[in-house]
């Protein structure tokens, strides 16, 4: 079919394209004039200040350095600073102490653990499939570690996109690079799938659909999946656009076996000599098992196999899609694959990529072309979407408050020029996310105090103007990691798998309490779909079957129950009481209260707090002092001062 024959597709929504803000080219706006000129520290501050002034308000004063250092550690690392770290910053009198701190935080591997986890929310990352057959994802953790590493290396975001969508189609300069690119493909493979389905046709289409939906929302903020059944009702995406993309994903192989229970495709990434060695052993093993092999030869083979296998590393396979013979997809009337309509050649959505598209290659799926188009500086959506995500994860709300939806039903940006400033900046800095962090963390906006100027809270309760810092509750992982760290229990080792179930076996949700006991960062606890840790779920850990770029932050009573009664909190509070008592053998009760407050809140105790703590301790029985200190530690873990990032 000629490309021109479907140019009329999507006509009904052309007016939508003309007006939808997110599809307009990114414009680098001039900085608004600012007065007073001494407030802005970074270009972004001019945009923020202009709106604050326009509304007749003034920004909040800067937060004190003690508050700022805690905020910075929690924001970039997801862990509070130690007393030493706080002290080092407070005593650093150099003029550039703040940018030095930010650089150090961005250079630490703790940064990738914190910000990689943000991306894993978007990638609906899980170690098990969920859905109907909750079997373990073989080696999915390698994708998680890839993400952490990509953030730590500040991998250019366009490259990050291409690797995740088409890592198998990229050239590689080294075996390590090839392995890393193949591991990135986990992004497409870790989606939830119905694995026990008697209809392989339905499975293939549903998997492609999930991939289209995730790709569209993760990178473009577009709900492309809506066009599966009909032209998109609100956005300029036609059903033909959808099936143009569906052809790309239908020409991609995600499973190797479609009958029940289905299996996912994996790439063997070990180096060829190791693979050859394993093959050699397997073939000798076969010889040995043959009936006609004489006994003495069997013994000989046995020795040989043992010596070849000694200290031999296992083969590494990573979860990832691969190419499949190319095919175009017909429109499915009302989404039903039993009533097929017109064939649509594989292509990109017309309203986004225009009518003048080079045809997709005949010999490959088109994923690489799709990835390159998404990661192109000319795509108006991609840079805006990721810049907005970064903003969202720093401030708790996006400039576009619906980070996964930049369509008509999303909410338009509160600061469109600022969003375009970031999108431009991102492309100019070769898609460096750390460049955005530096501007944001260096800004006067981010460094404001939570104490607003008069009238601001009443006029702007949701803080849409950013005329103050809005305190936020710690996320589930930050809370657990912070409690473990404050009680001296955190095991800081990085990467690897804690999963104690063989590949493709059913996961046992009864194991979750055991996993949760491991004092590793929460990022490394296996993530099971259709299940989950009661404590993390209570604190809004997102359902890992759906993409979530805007985690909720609820206040519900199961959170209180967790802080009052959970094993983690009780064990940690006892451990912290032990730390306190061994660190302060000669201190008075009052000074011990002060130690605890300094340790957890990085500030001095007030006289009232000392008295209150003393009274609490004095009323405990003589043999119950350790328990009373643990109780006090628990109270401080549960307090708003600990839970909120200010």
């Amino acid at each position, binding site marked *: 079919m000629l490309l021109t024959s479907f140019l009329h597709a999507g006509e009904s929504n052309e007016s939508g394209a003309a007006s939808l803000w997110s599809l307009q080219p990114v414009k680098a706006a001039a900085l608004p004039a600012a007065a007073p000129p001494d407030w802005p520290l970074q270009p972004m501050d001019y945009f923020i200040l202009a709106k604050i002034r326009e509304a007749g308000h003034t920004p909040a004063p800067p937060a004190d350095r003690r508050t700022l250092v805690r905020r910075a550690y929690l924001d970039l690392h997801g862990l509070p600073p130690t007393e030493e770290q706080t002290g080092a910053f407070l005593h650093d009198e150099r003029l550039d102490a703040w940018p030095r701190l930010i650089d150090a935080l961005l250079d630490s591997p703790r940064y990738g653990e914190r910000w990689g986890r943000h991306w894993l929310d978007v990638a609906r990352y899980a170690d098990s499939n969920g859905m109907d057959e909750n079997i373990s994802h073989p080696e999915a953790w390698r994708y998680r570690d890839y993400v952490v590493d990509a953030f730590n290396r500040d991998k250019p975001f366009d490259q990050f996109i291409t690797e995740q969508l088409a890592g198998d189609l990229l050239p590689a300069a080294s075996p390590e690079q090839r392995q890393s690119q193949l591991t990135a493909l986990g992004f497409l493979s870790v989606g939830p799938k119905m694995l*026990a389905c008697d209809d392989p046709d339905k499975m293939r289409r549903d998997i492609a659909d999930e991939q289209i939906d995730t790709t569209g929302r993760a990178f473009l903020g577009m709900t492309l999946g809506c066009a599966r059944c009909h032209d998109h009702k609100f956005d300029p995406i036609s059903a033909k656009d959808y099936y143009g993309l569906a052809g790309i994903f239908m020409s991609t192989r995600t499973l190797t076996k479609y009958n029940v229970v289905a299996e996912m495709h994996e790439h063997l990434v070990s180096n060829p000599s190791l693979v050859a060695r394993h093959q050699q052993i397997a073939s000798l093993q076969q010889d040995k098992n043959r009936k006609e092999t004489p006994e003495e030869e069997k013994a000989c083979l046995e020795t040989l196999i043992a010596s070849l296998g000694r200290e031999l590393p296992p083969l590494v396979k990573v979860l990832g899609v691969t190419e499949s013979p190319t095919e175009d997809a017909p429109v499915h009337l009302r989404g039903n694959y039993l009533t097929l309509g017109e064939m649509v050649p594989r292509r990109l959505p017309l309203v986004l990529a225009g009518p003048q598209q080079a045809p997709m290659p005949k010999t490959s799926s088109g994923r690489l072309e799709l990835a390159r188009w998404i990661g192109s500086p000319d795509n108006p959506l991609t840079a805006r979407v990721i810049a907005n995500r970064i903003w969202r994860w720093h401030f708790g709300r996006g400039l576009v408050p619906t980070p996964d*939806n930049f369509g008509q039903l999303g909410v338009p940006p509160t600061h469109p020029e600022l969003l375009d400033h970031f999108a431009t900046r991102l492309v100019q800095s070769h898609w460096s996310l750390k460049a955005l962090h530096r501007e944001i963390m260096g800004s006067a906006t981010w460094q404001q105090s939570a104490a607003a100027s008069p009238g601001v809270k009443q006029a702007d309760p*949701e803080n849409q103007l950013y005329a103050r810092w809005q305190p936020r509750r710690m996320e589930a992982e930050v809370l657990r990691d912070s409690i473990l760290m404050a009680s001296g229990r955190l095991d800081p080792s990085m990467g690897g798998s804690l999963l104690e179930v063989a590949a493709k076996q059913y996961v046992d949700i009864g194991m979750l309490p055991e996993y949760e006991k491991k004092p590793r960062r929460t990022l490394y606890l296996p993530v099971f779909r*259709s299940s989950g840790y009661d404590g993390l779920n*209570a604190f809004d850990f997102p359902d890992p*079957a759906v993409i979530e770029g805007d985690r909720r932050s609820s*206040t519900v009573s199961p959170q209180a*129950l967790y802080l009052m009664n959970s094993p983690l909190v009780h064990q940690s509070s006892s451990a912290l009481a032990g730390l306190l008592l061994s660190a302060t053998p000669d201190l008075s009760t009052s000074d011990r209260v002060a130690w605890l407050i300094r340790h957890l809140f990085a500030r001095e105790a007030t006289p009232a707090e000392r008295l209150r703590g003393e009274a609490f301790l004095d009323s405990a029985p003589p043999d119950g002092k350790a328990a009373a200190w643990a*109780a006090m530690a628990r109270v401080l873990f549960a307090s*708003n001062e600990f839970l909120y990032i200010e």
Partner: protein
Amino acid sequence: MNHRPVPTPLLLTRRAMLQRAGAGFGALALNALLGREATALTPPRLPARAKRVIFLFMHGGPSTLDLFDPKPLLRRDNGKPLPITGPRIVSAAPGNLLGSPWEFQQHGASGASVSTLLPNIASIADDLCFIRSMRCSNSRHGGALLELHTGSDTFTRPSMGSWINYGLGSENDNLPGFITINPSGSHGGAGAWSSAFLPARFSGTRIGGGAGGLHVPFIHSPLANPSDQRRELDLLAAFNQDHLAQRGPDPELESRIASYELAFRMQREVPGVQDISGEPDSIKKLYGADVDPTRSFAEQCLMARRFSEAGVRFVQVTHRYWDSHGDLRRDHARLAAEMDKPVAGLISDLKQRGLLEDTLVLWGGEFGRTPTAQGKDGRDHNPHGFTMFMAGGGTRAGTQFGATDDFGYFAQENPVHYHDLHATILHLLGMDHEKLTYRYAGRDFRLTDVHGEVVKGILA
């Protein structure tokens, strides 16, 4: 608190709530905390017949051909090939016809057919409303189970208990609004009680069915002395009040302070509601909680009644595992004996308390089983035609609605899909299934997606 676009102007938005925060600490913070803020429809737009639901879920797919749906031709042609065209997609090649090994009788004034496997349910047949023409879209446990619970066998969607709580809000602030007792971890797991993209507070609370015993997570204080916890909470309140005083009024901080008091109340109330030890012997006997093999399921049904009575909107109890691919005679006899008396006992008990009036009871598995044999003594999954029943909550007692074909393979007369079942349940609760929506990812989602018709023939 979330910042999502809210689905209807009836909601009290966060903005409005914050602007009114000057009204003072207490009621407002507590309201926000209890989730009243984002309840979809207040009040319900249709007259409600039911206020709450108890769902008795038979995991594995009971063979309703052997329980409720007698087929004389199936018995006559026992051992012969299926004379009608079977489904397009099957899990395994179908065997020959297998007539039910059990006898059937008609019961009560309604003349409902029930097999000899279920004498207790047979005795209350006039209180029940049978739908003998159920069908769904998926022939596998996981797919069918998720479709039954969420309306989708394809994507992750909120479960019906979550939708109902989102629509109606709480009846008792000290209890969760949606409790699932001893659910299955497999075939969908938490997908069956998850709120998916609805706010987390509408998610089901799991009691049992995972690690630990039959209790709400973290509901028990590990402290030896409960008064110690009161002292801790008082100390906490003092720290938090100082913190709040330095920062000025803040609804979120105030809600969190209130959340500890609510948790403390829940901690006192939940175990009491759940505790069936104080029930009189006559009640325990009625459910079969006094003897094996009914004891375990009876205790859970009794617990379900107590939760329901205390105001939990949606309570689910799961009985398993009805997947008789082989040993149908042995296993269905055993499973029926475990389930029959507790279910009949629960419905009778609700009735004698006047609760059946506004409590909707639903009984059913994720699908039925084939009229054709698997091996000599088993049946395969059949999503194309099977029976479920309801009781109370505005359904017409003594109804026999719909029918399968002569062999019991396909729903033939008045087929009822899960989408229709969901539409009907919402209708009975006073909600229009086309209007109960939540905006997510650019669309207004419904429990019934774009499907569903209220089954008028079963309404009282």
